[in-house]
Structures are given as structure tokens and as C-alpha cells.
């Protein structure tokens, strides 16, 4: 059985209690994107300012549970200052972290097959890997990915 400590790692609680990059940015030049989790009512607002193909600044608004807030906080720290391409790679890697483990949920059994790692994230996720415990609580995966989907939406809108 997955315990609470698998879900609520200390670093997650730290980001929840002291969220990084909370606030707003002027729109424009920043892009504002909203995300909703219709299941639980969580709402997130991601402000992303892109300058010269670089994520110059990110701010997070809205309200949500510890997982969604911590994930948003860690995301903001992970993408701020990176190029848009790098930021998108981090988004992909994070979502892969969530879905790869989702596929393995069937059992805590040894890997079947060849144990290939072709889906391994192309970028190091660092602290974000603390969130991988979330995949053992499938209903919470949407909490963890809410900010990321909203950032992706913001980057798409900034590019268009």
C-alpha cells in the first residue's frame, strides 16, 4: 500500500507552504492562461512572459490542493530562465514521468518485457522527481499536471 509519505514528500510540502513565484505579471507583455480541474474545483492561473524565445518570467495564481500548488511552484522554478524549447522539453518530461508510472500501476510487479527506457525523460527533472509518488494515487495525477497543461497552453498562446 502506498503511504502518505510517498505522496507528500518533504520537498512537496515545502513548496506548498512556501510557494515560489506566486503573483501576477502585466498582460501584455506576459501571457495569461487559466486551468481548471472540474473534479475538485482547483483553479490555476499561469502568467508567462516570453522574451527572445526565452521564458523571462513566470508567476502563478489561483488556488488548489498541496499537490497542485507544489507542482506549480516547482514548475515555475524549473522553467524560469530557460528557452521555450527547453521549457517544452521539461513539460514533456514531467508529463512522461506521470504517464509512464501510470502505465506501471497495474502491479508493483517486476517489469514485464524488455525493460526498455526509450521513454526516459530527455532532461533531468531534479526536485520534480519528488512528485513521482503521485502516480501511486491516480486521482491526484490531474492535480499534479494541472499547472503544466496550463503553462503549455500559455506558451502556445504566446507563440501564436
Amino acid at each position, binding site marked *: *500500500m502506498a503511504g502518505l509519505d510517498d505522496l507528500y514528500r518533504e520537498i512537496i510540502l515545502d513548496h506548498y507552504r512556501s510557494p515560489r513565484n506566486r503573483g501576477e505579471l502585466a498582460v501584455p507583455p506576459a501571457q495569461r492562461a487559466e486551468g481548471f480541474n472540474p473534479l475538485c474545483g*482547483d483553479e490555476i492561473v499561469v502568467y508567462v512572459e516570453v522574451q527572445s524565445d526565452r521564458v523571462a518570467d513566470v508567476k502563478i495564481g489561483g488556488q488548489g490542493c498541496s*499537490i497542485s500548488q507544489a507542482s506549480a511552484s516547482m514548475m515555475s522554478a524549473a522553467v524560469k530562465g530557460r528557452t521555450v524549447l527547453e521549457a517544452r522539453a521539461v513539460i514533456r518530461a514531467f508529463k512522461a514521468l506521470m504517464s509512464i508510472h501510470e502505465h506501471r500501476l497495474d502491479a508493483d510487479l517486476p517489469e514485464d518485457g524488455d525493460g526498455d527506457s526509450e521513454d526516459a525523460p530527455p532532461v533531468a527533472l531534479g526536485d520534480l522527481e519528488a512528485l513521482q509518488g503521485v502516480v501511486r494515487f491516480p486521482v491526484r495525477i490531474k492535480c499534479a499536471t494541472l499547472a503544466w497543461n496550463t503553462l503549455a497552453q500559455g506558451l502556445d498562446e504566446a507563440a501564436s
Partner: protein
Amino acid sequence: MSTSTATTPWDASLIKVDFPILGQTVHDRRLVFLDSAASSQKPDAVIKAMSGYYKTTHANVHRGVYAMAEQATNLYEGARAKVAAFVGAGHSREIIFTKNATESLNLVAKSWGHANLRAGDAVVLSEIEHHANLVPWLMLKDELGIELRYLALGDDGHLDLDDLDRLVDGAKLVSVTAMSNVLGTLPPVRRIADAAHAQGALMVVDASQYVPHLATEVLALGADFVAFTGHKMLGPTGIGVLWGRSELLDAMPPFLGGGDMICDVRLDGYTPNELPWKFEAGTPPIAEAVGLGAAVDYLDALGMGAVRQHEVEITGYALATLADRFGDTITVYGPADPAERGGVISFSLADVHPHDISQVLDQSGVCIRAGHHCAKPLMRRLGVGATARASFYIYNDHADVDALADGLDATTRFFA
């Protein structure tokens, strides 16, 4: 005023044994089910009635000539008669079986609404409605251009009725809940109905949370239509009920079209069936009706007065326990007096998000709901994104409330 000194009419541990699911463990802990406002558990009597029907009597209804088909029809129609008697309907033909209360409310909005409402006509709702009693009317607003007006929630957890006469003035229809699924608020339906009728408006009552918990007499409520659902009153999912006054139902166009709802079909038209089948297109939820009939028998045997008495008692105990143990760190929404509310307690605990509360409680085997409870406008009115909600039914006892409080203790320690 009723307080925690109220007595409970039964030993809930004797009721629990009728519910097989409650004998289970979750995470090696006793299952403590406090989410009956979302869906109640089912007694053995309901489960056995449904499996017995499938094992011995299943055939499609209203069709076959053979004995078993006739028996199936009798069981289905017998369940309708039980439900009619349970809510004080004048006649079984006024009981329409639907999929759920949501479909019942959509039936009224689509059938009566499209036949009777025009651009600019006013429909009165309230701020505390479930999405099921908001979205069908919002759809009519988009489709027909009707005007929606809302009874406001007062800070005491009751509807503010100071504006009632002004709001219903000139309205064509009023549709309100008889019990809030978030706050437990019990709006004075009769008073609202009388005000509506004085203006010539019809009164629709969303009784999804009311019928399972309080003795219901549809005529005494002053309603023209009453919607409720089977799965919150010990019955199965997949069956809901619409009661309506027969002269209104008779005058309304059909809702869904297909088999069973017709008298005759020609290549150039059709003639609808009589009530109630006019509104029951296609093969109905037969086994579900049988299960709902068994649920009604179970509740009748307990007595709805006793059901309510038990809930007032346990709600009072829960409100007192939460106040005692969590003081200022807990915010409980809704009316303060357990005698003036249902057994639904929505709360915020310190600044712990409801999702996190529910997650920690789950580790103790305690099931509560966390979220917006399909009432997002009410969440905005309360100034929160979501709440945690514990709700009680006949099988809950003080030990369940204590398990909730212990779990909340663990939650506050974890997130301190």
C-alpha cells in the same frame, strides 16, 4: 431547539450489518462511509431483490404475453406504486421513472420549458442549487432567451427570502432545492411554492437530498414537480424519479422518443402513450426499479420520522464534536441548528485544502467528499474553491464521527 441531547431511535451497529459493504476494511481500517449525500450504500435487501429478479423473473416489460414477462411488468409497476405511496403521490401515473434526478429536471426544462417559455420569461432559482438544477435552465436561457433570477443565500446558511415576492413577481416557474447538498439547508419549500403560485408560476422541487432523509408529501410541499434519485435512498444507480401533477404532465409534449412511449406510430406521425409511459422511452431500468422498491420497503420499515430523528441526533453530535476538538481552526458552513438542517456538513479546516484532507482521511478508512459538490456558484458565494463534506445516513453512528475527528486531527498534524 434540538442539540446533542436528542436521542437516536436505533443502534446504528444493528443497521450496519444489513449493509455488506460496510463490513469491509480499507487500508486495514474499518470502512467509515461519510459520503452518502453523493450516493448511499445498499442494504442486502436491495441487492437480493435485484439479483433475485435477474435469477428468476427477468423479461422485458409491457411486451411479452408469457407469464414471466407479465411478472416482470408487475414488479416494475409495483415498484412505481411503492414510490408513489412513499412520497404521497395521488396516483402511480404521476410517477415517471428516469435515469436520475438530473434527467428528471432536464425533462421538465426541455418538455415543459420549450412548450411554455418564451424570450424574456423569468425563471427563479437559488444560489445554493446543484448544477443539475442550474444547467438545464442556463441551457434554456441560451436557447430561448429566458431570464434567470436567484434567491440569495443569507449569512446564516438559510435562503434570504426578504426578496421572495419581488423575485417571483411575473415569473413563470420557480425551481429550488428542498435540501442543499452542500450546506444541509432546508429551504421553506411550502412558503416559496405559495409565493410562486400567487404569481401563477409553477413550483419545481429538487428533492434529491430530501426524499432519502425526511418524510415527503409532494402535495404538502406545494410542488408541481418533484425530482429525486434512487441511489441516494438505498436504491441502485440508474433510476431516478419525476413526480408531476397529472394535468401538467398530460399537457406536456414527450421528452425522449422511441419504443414504449407511443400508442401508435405511422410513417407520417405518432400518437404518444398515456402517463406515465409517455415519458419512458425505450426499455426502462427494470431491475433498478425492483431495487428501488426494496429500498422504499426498507426505509418504510424504519420509518422516515425515525430516519430524520437519527440524523438530527448524529448531526448535532458531529457539529458539537468538530467545534469541541477544532475550535477556531474549523469553519462549518450552513445553518448552526441541527434541527434546521440535513445531515450534510461542509467545512474548511485551517488552510488545508479539502483534497488533502480527504487524502489523509482515506488512510484511516474514512470516506468524505472533497470538491465543489457540483455547486460552483455556491462555492463562489462562500468564497472558497472547494470544501470537505461529511454526510450521514441511517448506518452512521458516533464512532464514525469520532473516526472523522481523529482523522482530521491527523490531518492538521500532518500539514502543521
